[in-house]
């Protein structure tokens, strides 16, 4: 009640003021061109999303309806590992070395040697339509984030522009027979990992721009501990780093204009009703190729140059967190760059692999690039 009154008060007296809270990219987040220096190892996949390394050193890549296995020197060779009915998204490896695949509209599949051994598609009698991340706990149980109840992962931006909070965190027991919905009303949870000390489960929430953790044995709304709040972008996947700490990617950045449009109900609804989603005012994985896209003042080319500090419709950002969950380093591909929409990360003993979904690139960063 108090909350509602407060919201009403703000609506009347402080319309549009909320957007001023986007923090600037400063300190450890100071922009650089580090991602532009990463090496491209593949640029011929379509609609790629995530990567994971299995216990034997194979790299798996989700692309469209397939999961590819990359192998050989520098992972330059590829072969189809498994074909799916939906678009493959988040990947992970469970305790026994099986591959777990998030499939849009289908749920999560656990695959052993190319064969599906478990199909987790329902929780609490609701289908898992928007699986975004999966992780295996210390006892072999599976944690799955269902981004939203309303859309499949490809339509994530609709979920944002509709201002939904319809995500879930689900736990399956280790043989996949029993499911339990641990958390509901999450704002597009998109990344999951187990903390380095194996005591916590860490989760990112896109639309709330935050990272939280829960004790792994006691996941309840009340046990939530917010680690990072009011981030300047929409945090996506998070993975543990081989030298301690974590890697986290932002699939897009917040802008004043998008935050403003989120406040403007009439305009937003009409825009969603009559305009092609490609041309909405919204964050995107990639931008700048189509001239009907919205343009902001800062984007205007001057003397033939697009300024790197223009408001980012799309952006590339990877951050390194330490074990205290502080951002200690960041890797950027700025507005004028072409490696945007970083969705997947994978750490192979100090070598970082990253997926630029916006520009369909598989990137590799060795020690000199990091």
């Amino acid at each position, binding site marked *: 009640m108090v909350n509602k009154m407060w919201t009403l008060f703000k609506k009347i007296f402080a319309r549009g003021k909320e957007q001023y809270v986007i923090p600037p990219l400063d300190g450890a987040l100071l922009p650089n061109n580090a991602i532009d220096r990463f090496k491209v190892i593949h640029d011929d996949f379509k609609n790629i999303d995530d990567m994971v390394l299995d216990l034997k050193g194979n790299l798996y890549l989700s692309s469209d309806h397939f999961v590819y296995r990359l192998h050989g020197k520098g992972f330059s060779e590829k072969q189809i590992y498994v074909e799916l009915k939906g678009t493959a998204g988040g990947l992970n490896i469970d305790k026994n070395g099986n591959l777990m695949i998030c499939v849009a509209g289908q749920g999560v599949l656990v695959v052993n040697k190319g064969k599906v051994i478990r199909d987790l598609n329902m929780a609490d009698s609701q289908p898992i339509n928007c699986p975004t991340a999966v992780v295996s706990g210390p006892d072999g149980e599976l944690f799955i984030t269902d981004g939203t109840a309303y859309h499949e992962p490809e339509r994530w931006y609709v979920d944002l522009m509709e201002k939904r909070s319809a995500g879930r965190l689900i736990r399956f027991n280790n043989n996949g027979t029993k499911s339990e919905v641990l958390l509901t009303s999450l704002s597009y949870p998109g990344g999951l990992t187990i903390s380095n000390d194996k005591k916590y489960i860490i989760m990112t929430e896109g639309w709330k721009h935050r990272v939280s953790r829960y004790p792994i044995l006691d996941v309840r709304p009340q046990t939530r501990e917010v680690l990072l709040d009011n981030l300047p972008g929409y945090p996506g996947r998070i993975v543990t780093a081989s030298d301690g700490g974590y890697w986290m990617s932002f699939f897009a950045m917040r802008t004043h*204009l998008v935050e403003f449009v989120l406040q403007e109900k009439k305009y937003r609804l009409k825009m969603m009703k009559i305009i092609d989603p490609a041309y*909405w005012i919204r964050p995107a994985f990639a931008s700048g190729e189509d001239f*009907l896209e*919205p*343009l902001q003042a800062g984007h205007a080319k001057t003397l033939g140059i697009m300024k790197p500090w223009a408001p980012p419709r799309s952006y590339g950002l990877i951050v390194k967190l330490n074990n205290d969950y502080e951002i200690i380093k960041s890797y950027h591909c700025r507005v004028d760059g072409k490696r945007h929409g970083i969705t997947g990360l994978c750490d192979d003993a100090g070598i970082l692999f990253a997926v630029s979904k916006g520009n369909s690139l598989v990137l590799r960063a060795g020690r000199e690039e990091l």
Partner: protein
Amino acid sequence: MSQLNQRLLYLRYKWSFKKFLAELLEKRWMDAIIPFVVMVTVIIVFGSQVDNYFSPMVLSMTARDFAEPGFVALAMAICLISGGIDLSVGGIFAIVNFLALLLIHVYGWPVIMVVPVSLLIGAILGALNGLLIGFLKTKAFLTTLVTMISFRAIVKLLNLKYATEIALSAKNNPYESAAWDFLGDGSLFGIPSDVVVLIIIAFLGHILLTRSRPGWHLYAVGGGRRSARHVGIKVERIIFFVYVISGILTAIGAVFYAARLDSAASETGVGLEILVLMSVVLGGVSIMGGKGTPGRALMGIVIVMVVMNALLRLGVNSAMNSLVQGMILLFAIGVDVKWLKHLYASIEKIYVVPTYLSLPKALDPRQGSGTVFEFNDKMEDTETIGLDQVDGPEDVILDRKGRLYGSVRQGWIVRFSGENFSKREIFANLGGRPLGMAFDKNENLVVCVGGMGLYGVKPDGEVFKITDETNRTWTRLKDDSRIRLADDCDIAPDGKIYFSEATIRYKMEEWPVDGQECRPNGRLICHDPETGITKTVVRNLIFPNGVCLAHDGKSILIGLTWKCDVLRYWIEGPKKGKIETLISGLPIYIDNINRASDGTYWLASVGLRTPVYDLAMEMPSFRLRMVKFVPSDEWLYPNVNWGCVIKFNEQGQVLESYWDPNGAFSHVTSMREHKGYLYLGGLHNNRIGRLKIKGADPEWTGPNSYWGNR
């Protein structure tokens, strides 16, 4: 949305009280609105409380009382405006009063001598202040405090020596002089003599301060002494003369006082400095300097005198009188300070008033759409001229010798000549932001200069002003006589120059704000070089940009940027003076329009319409909030990173479009055809483009097309 609904929305946003209010508050004279309201209020309130307040007799007496401190108030005002203060006015007043009486009664000088000598004494005393403050740079407050004490001491000394003498001689042989009596209680047309003089001086002072070079220098010194010095104003001299004038004005008041009261009492002028200081501050003359006018100073003194006088006559005792006075002053000063402090911030908050604009659905320019605007690679082979040698050539033009001119951001006209246009020179330096250009019959280059007006450049590079003013719209509150953003021009066969002014509400660098507002703020202006008269011919256009004379010379084509329309304005023939829409609702934002060799026209597009921007145009309140809450760098814009050139014919039919797939010539704002090539300019580009046009007449040039072969 239904037609009716659209119409209603349009009307709802067409006239805006907020816009009116913002333009009203922007007026300079609105600074004084609070003192004015206070003045009227006290006159009404006290006038109704006191019997016979407005009878001619009482009014004339009150006015006579008010005029003497009135002169001193002017003196104080001019000191405050200069950034100083003169506390010694009371002392000067007393000395001059005393000496005038001494000269009259003891020495028996004629009035014709006494008056100039008194004024001279005032000037000398003022000059003393001026010397100390102006040239020795002592602080005005302390200096005049010291001189105030000294002058007072002098009055006391003089009084000890001559008071009885004056009193005796005044009693024993009364001074008989019609002139002296006239000064004391004469009147002209029923107005007391001192009031007449005061009004004349205040009027002249107002003209001098607001309309003359020394006056402006004075405001400059008061507003920022260091800046004034840096621009070469002789600050010391100005300040010296300010105190001299202050002394003279005080002396005038003192002479009238002497003539009226004939009193050499030593307490003459005690507390006068505080009274006038309060009055002028109350009238809105800023104590910080640089602000105020004689009129406001007089308004302040009227308020104070009315209150004092009325309280006296209401029988309020003098202590109470002072207290009430103090309260009123405190209140008024408080309100005044707040008003001035928040006025400009308030104007800024309400100045932008977006309006409703519904554009017709745009033809699809995307690849594969099959429309005439379909994206293509016709501009792929564009050559580059002057890469990184030009900063934003808004317009480009070629002369008879094939030399290429570009109007660039630095305020220059850059000229390229020689083989492959490799020789670059600065042809003319205009200042401002040169935009559209045209050659007249005598090969003078006529240039629209944003922020300045319409200028010309002779073939030898000499710059001359053509016009920077047009007739004012008297029905409009905002003074629109000054040309702020001349955008593009063209010249009719009879030599008349037609040019567009994109907006009258914003400055050159604020043009995108006008885009957010989308109000018909622009106009078409015509300058006739024969008569030298400049006249607005079409008002209320939505950002008129390109201007082009039709091939037959009988009409002018005007491109409206935000409206995406091309208009035709007839200057000859049966439809002369009429305006009609030629093309409506293009999918691109229109910039310059120019002739093509095949009898058609080229049109440059500064950007593309995007669906979200079109939608925002239909939601004025959305745009208003965006302008308020979103940083200007993040405002929604039309897509200005992609531009194109289109060709249309006399009937308004779009024939073809030229696109640059590389995006190097994004944001095309102008193009000129010359001998089979098209030259491209852009407001934010670092180059000029040159494109071979298929099938164009290889001999055709602009100057020939306009003025014939030579």
